[in-house]
């Protein structure tokens, strides 16, 4: 086809204009390439994150339904126990889980850090509501000055992983230990001049004769600004009076209380969480736990919204890249259309001659489009190369920000707990596979895997990306060539040539 030959020849004969067009298309291609690469990197990261971060499945007691239940139904209702949790965790669908226990104790040998702040108006209102629900006297009667909390896996304790609490001396207790040891706050240590290695004696809030002696193995500092939950100004709700023990030790206290103490205290906000082998197994897991006896008063929920919130920055970057891509394409089409228009107007005489000697409108249009296409093809190669080189550091930067957030969390765990072998399962986002804990950690051992974060993400300008860029180039060429088509079809060769004469 001679129009290919003519178009190719004209590309080189009209070097000046074509270099200008080539530069513009190259810039568009670079931006498109970067936009595509970042968009793909973002979407891949989101997909990988979702794939490698299992949802946390929780059971929430539906208090309103329970309140409305008949007395018989209330009597039949039995809240969750540790045994229930362990039973539910004994499933092929569960990769990992943890639960928390809590007890309130007193001491005759150490003083609690007192909270002298008075509640504000809003707190008073809440206070009244709470008193109506439980009765203040009853609550105070059962609550000592200290609160002991145990996590079956402290790696899940977000106050420490987020850095609000930090081990400043000694180390954190572990879920696997059965020693009578705990960690106390720095405020409490200072108040009673305690240090790591000291032993303290605690007693039941209701029975000072039942005592428990614990060794302090770590001291933590709480950097959170306030303790909003302590609206009743009880010492036990002061975070400085919170002690952390292992499950076995706390279990002894709960056993000594002689009540239904193995129940999880849902009203205190403590709960169990299960991590499944696959995020799409939530429905199957719910079905399984219902069969195992989970009461209908418990609803099964996940932290999917929290994860989505965590991914929001990446999704924003991805969305921004996509919009950037669209804007670039629109601008590219407009700019190329204008350049084509100006180019064709300058070459009106040529169109007139070609039409006068019998070249059809479509072939003239085709030749002009081909000329732009040849330039676009060369620009595509150059632009893709530049885009590849420049999109890599941008994507790495984007990834670095993400990795930094994960790394800081990991560092928090190491620094705050005073050890580096505490980790949650499946935070490895490097290869699309979650971490594989050696055993389920709830109440027993900790996971021993370490998290290997991705430190770089290779931007691959693969065949699909090249084809997409090629498609975009064709789109740009055809769209801007459409302008050529419209203009050429409006020209009357006779008028062009007469005007020139």
């Amino acid at each position, binding site marked *: 086809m001679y129009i290919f030959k003519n178009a190719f020849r004209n590309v080189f004969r009209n070097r000046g204009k074509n270099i200008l067009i080539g530069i513009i298309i190259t810039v568009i291609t670079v931006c498109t390439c970067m936009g595509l690469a970042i968009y793909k990197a973002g979407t891949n990261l989101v997909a990988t994150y979702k794939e490698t971060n299992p949802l946390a499945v929780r059971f929430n007691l539906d208090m309103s339904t329970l309140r409305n239940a008949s007395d018989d139904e209330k009597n039949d209702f039995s809240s969750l126990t540790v045994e229930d949790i362990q039973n539910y965790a004994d499933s092929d669908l569960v990769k990992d889980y943890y639960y928390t226990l809590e007890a309130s104790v007193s001491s005759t040998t150490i003083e609690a850090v007192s909270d002298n702040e008075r509640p504000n108006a809003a707190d008073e209102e809440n206070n009244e509501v709470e008193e109506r629900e439980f009765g203040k006297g009853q609550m105070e009667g059962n609550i000592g000055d200290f609160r002991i909390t145990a996590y079956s896996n402290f790696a899940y304790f977000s106050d420490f992983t987020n850095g609000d609490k930090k081990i400043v001396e000694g180390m954190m207790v572990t879920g696997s230990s059965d020693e009578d040891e705990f960690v106390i706050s720095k405020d409490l240590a200072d108040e009673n001049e305690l240090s790591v290695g000291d032993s303290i004696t605690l007693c039941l809030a209701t029975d000072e004769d039942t005592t428990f002696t614990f060794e302090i193995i770590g001291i933590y500092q709480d950097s959170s600004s306030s303790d909003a939950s302590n609206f009743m100004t009880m010492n036990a709700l002061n975070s400085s009076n919170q002690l952390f023990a292992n499950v076995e030790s706390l279990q002894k206290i709960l056993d000594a209380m002689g009540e239904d103490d193995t129940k999880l205290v849902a009203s205190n906000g403590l709960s169990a969480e299960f991590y499944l082998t696959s995020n799409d197994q939530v429905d199957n897991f719910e079905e399984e736990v219902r069969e195992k006896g989970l009461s209908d008063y418990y609803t099964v929920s996940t932290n999917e919204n929290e994860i989505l919130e965590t991914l929001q920055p990446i999704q924003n970057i991805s969305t921004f890249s996509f919009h950037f891509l669209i804007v670039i394409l629109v601008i590219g089409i407009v700019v190329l259309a204008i350049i084509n228009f100006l180019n064709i107007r300058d070459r009106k005489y040529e169109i007139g001659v070609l039409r*006068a*000697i*019998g070249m059809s409108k479509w072939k003239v249009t085709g030749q002009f489009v081909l000329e732009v296409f040849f330039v676009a093809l060369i620009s595509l190669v150059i632009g893709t190369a530049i885009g590849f080189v420049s999109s890599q550091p941008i994507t790495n930067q984007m990834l670095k920000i993400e990795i930094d957030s994960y790394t800081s969390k990991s560092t928090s765990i190491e620094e705050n707990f005073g050890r580096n072998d505490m980790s949650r399962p499946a935070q490895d986002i490097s290869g699309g596979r979650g971490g594989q804990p050696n055993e389920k950690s709830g109440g027993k051992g900790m996971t021993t895997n370490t998290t290997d974060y991705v430190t770089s993400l290779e931007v691959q300008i693969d065949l699909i990306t090249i084809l997409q860029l090629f498609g975009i180039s064709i789109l740009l060429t055809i769209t801007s060539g459409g302008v050529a088509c419209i203009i050429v079809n409006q020209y009357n*060769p*006779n008028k062009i*040539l007469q005007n020139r*004469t």
Partner: protein
Amino acid sequence: MEENILRVENLSFTYDKEKFVLKDINMEFKKGIAYGIFGRSGAGKSTLLSLLAGLETSKYGHIYYKNQDLFQMNLDKYRCNEIGIVFQAYNLLPQLTAIENVVLSMDISNLKVKDREKKAKSLLSKVGIRDEMMNRRILQLSGGEQQRVAIARALSYDSEIILADEPTGNLDPEMEDEIIDLLLKIAHKENKCVIIISHSKNVKQRVDQLYHLVNGRLIDSANEEK
């Protein structure tokens, strides 16, 4: 007697539907004859050539090419295969060389020739373009040379009709004679119908047959064989 290759019947033309620049024109053209269409500026000569060349169409009257209604034909094909046009302003593509201009014309007409470049050289040589000029870009050639290239282009696809619009209008007298000689030679020796639109007395004296246009009308007395 040889059949008319081109016949104009009752042809009128208007650009604005009010003032007719051509009025009821009747003409006949045969192969082997050089025709001259004369008239003052504004007489409608160039409009007539545009219609004969298929660059314009009219709702009033007919032009028949080999007894086919020209306005019903594919005019692109007509222009690239059936007629060769030589313009006063040459209308060659300046970014191409002399050879490329001629070859392009053959390409557009899809001429069945093995070696188009060889034929282009032969044609350029025939119209008096020296070998060393053939690979020069058009703007590096003189006006006379450009017009010769334009004639070579018009001949390149063996059309039976050559339309020349003021082919000597931009040339000096010596060059004018050479171009007229060339066109007459094409008509007589190559048995082509050559139609020259001009107001040159030189052309008027040398063509075989004359048509005279006055204010868009054909003057009968002018339609006489010389």
